[in-house]
Each structure stands twice: as C-alpha cells, then as structure tokens.
C-alpha cells in the first residue's frame, strides 16, 4: 500500500496488543452467562438514551446520542445544489457518511472508510429517505455526517436516531421521526440493545449446532406511521424468530419515539424562552 503523504505515518506494521495471550494462560473465553447481562439489564431492557441537540454550532442541525457507552455525533448541513451529472433531478437527495472514529472500536480503524462503514452509510441513507420529504428540495442534496466516537454496540441504531433528530433540528421537512433499535439473537435468547461483546457473541455460531438461531437485527421504523423504513439482518435465523424479534423491535421503536420528540420540543422551548 502506498504511504499516505498527507499524514504523519507510523511504522508500516503494528499490531494491537489484544491479540497476545495473557500472562497467566487462563481459558480466555469466558462462557457468557445469558441469565445476567454485564450491565445488569434484563434481556428485553434497553440502555438509557441520552440525547442532546445542537452540539455542533457550525452545523445547521446536529445531535449527540449516548446509549450506554455508545456515543454518536451527527450533523446536518444546508442543502447544496446537485452537480448536474444526469440533468435536473425532481427529487432531493440525502447523502450520508458514516464513520467510526479511529479509537472507537476494539480494533483501530483506518482513516478511509472501510467496507463496513460504506455499507452503514448506504443503510443510513435508505433509512432516512422514506422519512424526508425529498420533493421539497428538488435538485438539492442534504449532507448527513455521522461519527461514532465510541462503539459499545448498536451503533447503527444510535446513528439512525441521531441522524433523524439532527435532520429535524436542521429544519429539513420530514414525514416523521425515525427510530431504530437492535436485537441480538442467540438460540432462545433475545438480547435487546446488545453491547459490542454481546454483538460479537451473537455473530458467531457455536460449533456443531446447525439448527441454531444466531444473528443481529437492526430495525428502523417510522413509529408515527407504523412503517418499517429499514431492516438489516445478519446471521442465521428462521422466519418465525425474525417475526417475533421484529415485533419486539417495532414495539421498542414506538417507545423510543417520545424521547426524541421531547428532546426536540425542549430545545425549541429553550430557544423560545431565550428570545423572550
């Protein structure tokens, strides 16, 4: 790989220290206990959501969301005219860019977007498109930038909610808010809002068990309209389980919606009071 001359470069190869074994060679894989989660939640309990609006003063709209240790910032800018590559476009466009900060994950991320981040960018775009009145800004593009500062699981769901709140904060016309949540499935266990270690467990299949459900589902919906705006499933799950899980997720999404609404209303009220 050519060296990037636009940065200060370290050594050519370096390895994270996590791959090395511990001093005392204990069995490094601790069996995960599904009756008790590391943060003392029940399986169907979500982490607390902390949401703050307008944290990026330079942006048109912005939001910061914390779900447990997952921290995501999102900002939205003024619409820009589309570069006329295919002639006039009767609909507006949303451009999303999703990035993990280099220090946000167990493994250091490189500065360019990797395949996963590109995929998440596309998912984010598809999630937001049904919610935004694209016909209101023809031939213009709204940029949505998402940065995950700390990824402790369910970062995609957090990013979706941050983005939808930031869009609302920026005053982009929308049909409704988008809420999202994630569920991890491992056998008969349904783990709502999994942490990153739980995500890693749900992603791997135990040995010699073919008929075993495992996987992660992220579901984004427009709770005000009872619509699903995006599903992202990965793993190996049968249809009935998916049905059951999506039901749980839709219910959760409905519950989250007031949190977002309240936060938006509070910001408006604060602005209003300040003006007075």
């Amino acid at each position, binding site marked *: 790989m050519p060296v990037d*001359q*636009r*940065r*200060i470069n370290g050594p050519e190869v370096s390895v994270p220290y996590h791959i090395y074994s511990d001093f005392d060679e204990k069995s490094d894989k601790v069996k995960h206990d599904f009756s008790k989660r590391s943060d003392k939640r029940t399986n169907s309990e979500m982490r607390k959501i902390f949401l703050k609006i307008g944290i990026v003063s330079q942006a048109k709209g912005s939001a910061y969301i914390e779900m447990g240790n997952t921290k995501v910032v999102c900002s939205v800018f003024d619409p820009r005219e589309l570069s006329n590559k295919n002639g006039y476009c009767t609909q507006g466009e949303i451009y999303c860019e999703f990035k993990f900060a280099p220090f946000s994950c167990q493994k250091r991320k490189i500065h360019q977007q990797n395949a996963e981040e590109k995929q998440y960018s596309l998912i984010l775009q598809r999630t937001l498109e049904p919610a935004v009145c694209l016909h209101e800004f023809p031939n213009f593009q709204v940029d949505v930038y998402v940065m995950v500062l700390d990824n402790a699981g369910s970062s995609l769901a957090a990013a979706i909610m941050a983005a939808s709140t930031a869009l609302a904060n920026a005053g982009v016309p929308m049909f409704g808010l988008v809420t999202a949540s994630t569920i991890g499935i491992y056998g008969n266990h349904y783990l709502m809002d999994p942490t990153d270690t739980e995500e890693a467990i749900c992603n791997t299949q135990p040995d010699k068990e073919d008929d075993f459900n495992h996987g992660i589902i992220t579901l984004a919906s427009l709770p005000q309209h009872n619509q699903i705006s995006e599903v992202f499933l990965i793993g190996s799950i049968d249809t009935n389980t998916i049905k059951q899980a999506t039901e749980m997720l839709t219910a959760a999404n409905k519950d989250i919606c007031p949190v977002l609404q309240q936060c938006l209303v509070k910001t408006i009220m604060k602005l209003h009071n300040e003006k007075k």
Partner: protein
Amino acid sequence: MDTSEETSQSEYILRPMNCELNQLSMPDGSAMLMQGNTAVIAGIYGPVEAKPQKMIYDKASIEVSYSPIKGPTKVDDRMTEMYIKETCEAAIIVTFHPASAICINVQELEDSGGMLGCTINAACLALINAGIPMKFTFAAVNCMIQEDNEDIILDPDSIQLQEAKAEFTFAFDSMDKNVICCYTTGCFTETEFLKAMDRCKQASQYVFDFYRNLVKKYANVI
C-alpha cells in the same frame, strides 16, 4: 552575475548571499538564491486566471507549492508552503488583482540550514522580479541559541545547528521592521526570544540592502 564581493559587512553576520534573477524562462519572475550552501529556486506565475474552486472574488488568491529535493511532498512541506503563502499574502497588494491567482513555486536545491528563511527571501526576490505590486518587501533571518553557552548565532549552517537549543526564523517588513512571520523550534525563555528577535531585526537590514543592490544591478542590465 556575482554580487558576493559587494556585500561587505553582511559576510560577518550572515552567510554570503548570491542570487541570480530571471534564471527560468517560463515564469513571469524567478530567482535563484544561495545563502551559504543553502540554495533554492523560486518562480512566479501571475497574475493568472484562478481555478473556479480557489477563486476569491475580491482579491487574488495565492498558491504556493514547495518541492523538496527528493521524494514526494510531505506533511512537513505543507508547513513551509503555509509560511511562504501567508508571508507573501501580507506583502502583496492582493486587492489589485481580484479573482486572479498568483502562483509561487519554490524548489529546494540544497539544504544546509536556514531553509525556511531562504525560501521566503527567494520568494520575495522572485516577486520583485515578476513585478507584482507589494506593500513592502520582506526579509527572513534565521538564528539559533547554542546549547552550552546560550550564545545567539545568526544564520547558522547545518553543522552549527546540531548544537542548537532553539532555532528561530523571523521575517520582517521593510517599512517598520515589524515581524511578519515567526517560526521556532526548541524550548527557550522570553528574554532569549526577544534577544534573538532583536538580533535578527538588525541583520535583516543587510538582506534588504542585498535586495536593493541586486535590483540596482539588474535594472542596469535591463
């Protein structure tokens, strides 16, 4: 054209300076400057039409590219470019040429200490040669503080620099001798800094004199 024999006093304070103007045929102005063994060549194109992305509607945009002697342009060189750019921007009357660009290209030829100062001086000479209107000319002087005896050495070469505790590069304007740019490395105290600045300010006069003599000479030739 050799000018070294005339710089009578400066030899004791600064390394001998040599300059040839109009070395390059393509640019609108060019200067090859040697300060001791440090040598650079600078060429100016401009004012030319600016690229749409870089155009500023009410003034000229200044683009600098600095190429090191070997290898591709790195992060370090961006810093040099920024210093040249902002120093020249202060001197050039940018509002004279709205929506146009002035390109300054500097090529390193040899580095034996005081590179930044040398590039700034070469850029100034090239700007004079190109006839770009300027508010004032500017001269950069390099100096260092020695590690053991804390002496200030003006315009050190690369061997002297190995014993430097701190190194300073200042650029002064020709009118009030105020500081246009200032670049430092190493740790130093406030008094050391002020002393160094003072010494450099005095030395800058020799550089300005050098400019004047040089221009006089070339004016005759032309």
